[in-house]
């Protein structure tokens, strides 16, 4: 690549400088669009790479997971949130802090299962799907499936095995977008093998 650039830069003599620009307004909004569009590009690319939607969903979830396991660190580093005591607390943190921090939205937490091990996140508007219109031939695509992966990955890192899935999606014509989360078990950490 350097080879590439050299061709142009080094050979050209006369340069000319522009004044520094002033950072433009509404940065945040725009960069959210960058994210949204990038995600869109990713999804469509996957749709090209895999013929059926299920595989795409899987892939999205997998990528989400990989992001989640790293994202959680960033999250902890930036928010001084400590260990959660119970699942309800976790739910709160996810909705009120995490979503706010990363997607700029605060989903509401609803219909807890009596056992308190299951709840729903309701997203009134999902930044991932601004502008998106699902074509008919992708009816079974779970466009935002990445989120599930992220949540799964992130929580796993804090010793919570959870099951995450979309049960409603505005893209599919539902009124809201609903993510259902179920607590499976707590992952006890133990001494690595070969320790005595």
């Amino acid at each position: 690549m350097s080879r590439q650039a050299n061709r142009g830069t080094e050979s050209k003599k006369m340069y000319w400088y522009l004044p520094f620009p002033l950072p433009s307004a509404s940065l945040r909004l725009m960069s959210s669009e960058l994210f949204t569009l990038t995600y869109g590009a990713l999804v469509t690319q996957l749709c090209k790479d895999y013929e059926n939607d299920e595989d795409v969903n899987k892939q999205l979830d997998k990528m989400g997971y990989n992001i989640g396991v790293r994202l959680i660190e960033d999250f902890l580093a930036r928010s001084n949130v400590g260990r959660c005591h119970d699942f309800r607390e976790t739910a709160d943190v996810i909705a009120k802090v995490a979503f706010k921090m990363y997607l700029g939205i605060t989903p509401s937490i609803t219909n807890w299962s009596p056992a308190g091990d299951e709840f729903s996140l309701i997203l009134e508007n999902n930044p991932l799907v601004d502008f998106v219109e699902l074509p008919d031939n992708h009816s079974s695509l779970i466009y935002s499936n990445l989120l599930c992966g992220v949540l799964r990955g992130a929580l796993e890192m804090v010793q919570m095995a959870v099951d995450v899935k979309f049960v409603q999606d505005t893209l599919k014509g539902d009124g809201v977008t609903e993510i259902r989360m179920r607590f499976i078990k707590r992952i006890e950490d133990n001494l690595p093998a070969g320790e005595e």
Partner: protein
Amino acid sequence: MAVCIAVIAKENYPLYIRSIPAEHELKFHYTVHTSLDVVDEKVSAMGKALVDQRELYLGLLYPTEDYKVYGYVTNSKVKFVMVVDSSNTALRDNEIRSMFRKLHNSYTDVMCNPFYNPGDRIHSRAFDNMVTSMMVQVC
């Protein structure tokens, strides 16, 4: 109020064209097609012209006996053409302008739909609805 709304690609072919009544569509194809001459002329003139005339809205392209044809060109050289019944005198220039803005916004969303390939015909419910709203809402 508009009887025909068209979106024309950089390379001057229609990305979207809708008209009422639909049967006259071909006729409007010709109206819009020929209007591009004026668009080109105006845009190139703008190139020459200095900073002043740099608005995206081109204003009235030309009037025919029973229609007025207005134009708008985005920075990405996509053209919007709107044909309005000339009997409809109620329309102020500003209203036309704002209609074009709406059109542009809506088009931008289409552009941002990851499933849309730039350059293809526009098939978008959202866009359709918006256009319809402009066509029907008679003043």
